């Protein structure tokens, strides 16, 4: 079946099997491999993207369900001149990443978190990121990054 979406501002239309998950559509049909797959139970959040501005685990959505939607992936965050999004910059400055595998999903989820709550407490950040797992950082510097970004982005 044909699925047409806008990804990072660019129209994409691809013929896929109906059972194709959105994450595989993005990775394989759109060749946007920044969105990672970390589990098969929708537990880890590595595949978090934005659909029409809301953060979604792209392994929980069929590509077909996203037909017509506007999608932002990690590749769509930095400016054309290479300037990082304030959340990306905050992760960089606060060492909020190590191996980087959870990072795209963590950054997307964090942006969404601040959209909903621009001035979270540390505990609100921790609870807000409960659906995104990281094995490297112990979360300490991820939380620090999000709190720093909250200061920058508000």
């Amino acid at each position, binding site marked *: 079946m044909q699925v047409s979406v806008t990804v990072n501002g660019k129209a994409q239309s691809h013929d896929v099997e109906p059972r194709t998950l959105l994450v595989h559509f993005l990775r394989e049909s759109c060749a946007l491999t*920044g969105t990672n797959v970390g*589990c098969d139970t929708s537990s880890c959040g590595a595949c978090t993207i934005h659909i029409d501005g809301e953060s979604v685990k792209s392994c929980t959505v069929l590509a077909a369900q996203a037909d017509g939607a506007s999608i932002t992936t990690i590749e769509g965050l930095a400016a054309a001149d290479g300037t990082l999004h304030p959340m990306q910059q905050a992760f960089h400055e606060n060492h909020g990443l190590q191996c980087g595998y959870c990072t795209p999903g963590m950054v997307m989820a964090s942006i969404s978190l601040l959209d909903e709550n621009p001035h979270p407490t540390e505990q609100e950040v921790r609870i807000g990121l409960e659906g995104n797992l990281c094995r*490297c950082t*112990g979360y300490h510097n991820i939380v620090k990054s999000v709190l720093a970004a909250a200061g920058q982005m508000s």
Partner: protein
Amino acid sequence: MTMTEDVVATPFIGSRRLRREDPALLTGEAKYTDDIPAVGALHLAVLRSPHAHARIVSIDVSGALAIPGVVAAYTGEDLASQWAAPMPCAWPVTAEMKNPAHYPIAMGKVAYVGDGVVAIVATNHTASRDALDAIVVEYDVLPAVIDLEDALSDRVVIHESAGTNRSYIWELHPQGKETVDAIFASAAHTVSERYIQQRLIPAAMEPRAVLAMPQPFGGDFTLYTSTQVPHILKIMAAITVGIPEHLLRVVAPSVGGGFGSKLNVYAEELLCLVLARKHRCAVRWVEERTEAATSTIQGRGQIQNIELAADANGKVQAVRVHILGDMGAYLQLVTPGVPLLGAFLYAGVYDVPNMSFVCESVFTTMTPTDAYRGAGRPEATYAIERAMDSLAAKLGEDPAEFRKKNMIQKDQFPYTAMTGLQYDSGDHVGVLEKAQELVDYTGLRAEQAARRASGSKKHLGIGVSSYFEMCGLAPSRVLASLNYSAGGWEAATVRVLPTNKIQVVTGATPHGQGHETSWSMIVADKLGVSPDDIDVLHSDTALSPLGLDTYGSRSLAVGGIAIVMACDKVIDKARKIAAHQLECSEDDLEFVNGTFSVRGSSDKSMPLAGIAFEAFTAHNLPDGMEPNLEAHTTYDPPNFSWPFGTHICVVEIDEETGFTEVIKYVAIDDCGNQINPLIVEGQIHGGIVQGLAQALFEEATYDAEGNLKSGSFADYLVPSAADVPSLTLGHSVTPSPTNPLGVKGVGEAGTIGAAPAVINAIVDALSPFGITDITMPATPNRVWSAIQNAHS
């Protein structure tokens, strides 16, 4: 003044320089193995045994072959002729060790849930997975063996060829077994403890992935794989698959964490290679998370019996240890050696003159175990730190004061341990006291007493854990004495390009640790250039042909020193060129901030940039000098390095629910000099949470039939940000005197210190109930049940 001159005026070592790795990782530009395109690649899927122990009676793949896109289906017998050797184990710890041959796809019999039974090759991923459901296998199911003591009894022998489930027994009695037994017989005080190191699932966030690309006519193979050890893998794959080593290139692209689980040679890596050879085209495989729970190694898996004997003053005189190790169904790359890595640490940070250590390891019908962050050392530290608390409690002493009394004192370093190993440097009492101050130990004890007096149902517990870690793996001759099949050196090349940009080639293989950033800081300081002018090449055996990779907190303490030595060689050669061109003696030249100057005549100088270009043009070099400015070294460390520290965990336990909340966590980890404190702290944070996760959340649980019950992230509790506390890190620097950077390594420290600190805190909180131990993970149910049992 140029930007570069401005920058190089500062030493980079010791600064919190932001990581150069980040931008690619933050933008999705970084390529992990499954991100690498390979047009026309075939997809491998592996049918895995649903039984822990069974004979394969028959396999019918006809249904799978009928699925469009499925190219081939292979049983173990079908692939038998492809293997030049069985799966490798590089650590035959004793000459008598039982190591039953096993192959990437089982032949005749399966020995754990997850053992490979059929390899499917298809033109696309979905067809390869669909095919698995269409294969019919008839099994003759045999009894599972999941209990270590049951395994040792040989009630059911898993590998007939071995004749027993006991793989090996390994003993260490430096003072003689009888001496230690005699001390115990006459000791004023003893404790005898039994601890369970539960099996853990490493759960690196990137599941494993493999892409084997052949050049059918050229004869070469490139293997992309999510591994920590491309160099070791190249050798082992060549031996196992029979591809000549010089025709095999192994590349570890961006790797999404390892924690030891990617320090291995895996069936799927070898399968992709043989299938790429057979089908003359690229073959790829990507692991699913639930599959990873059984097909990637698990960690820990020990029953520990530890006894301490103390004199009348409470000074520990001897430690006696018996370990029962769970090898799982087969021996993977370093499976049998993991308990031995802890053998030397069972006296921890204490001045104990006698020890006796026995490790028996058994096969079980579960996923093979192998190295997981700390590998043997967290287990050892857990045992001694729990036992020290037990002994302190028995003597009615404060656990911190009891530790200090027994610790190796600062002025005893370098300290020759009763095992014969020499500890480089340390200040155990100092870091413990700093940690006590940081956490407000006195205040907490007062609060604890007040709560207890008031009958509060919220119980405060304070847990101390002090550790020593054996890092910098490793002096090759020591490895030889442990029967390890390789050396412990590391390689480096430093190459000054004609335009004074630098290439650094390292044999260490980062997978999240930020080696590119740290290595460039070291070289920048050595050569007086900007880190931005340095590229660090790694993780590809074509670019970095020599190396022994990254594990055991070895990269900096071994690989970093190799880089320092290569820089020194470059400087020596550059000095010869400068002396030649400035017409002076080499001895008259000083090298400061990237420039050679003649002492006392500041107008006579030559920057490294000029020398690099001279080395390139070769128009005016000293007679006989080769025209390049690069140096290669391999460094074999003279000793292990010995990081150390103290963690103090404070918990509050709700008596009504058994829920444990970590309300404060303080750690002081002394890893010697720090190249980049930002990175050091990140390593410690992550390590602590992994250790805390073992203490509170994680356990690979099996039912009586040998089925893994915690096989997905829905069942296996990798903690989230909401489950763990903020961490407070203190600071202590005791340089190692055995290497020129004074570094020790930090990759595993957090994990080693954390689990005993958490459990000591929980037991401390529950001590008014008469509770003296709690098995990991200390789930609310376990804690609540322990309280109920104590009440009744």
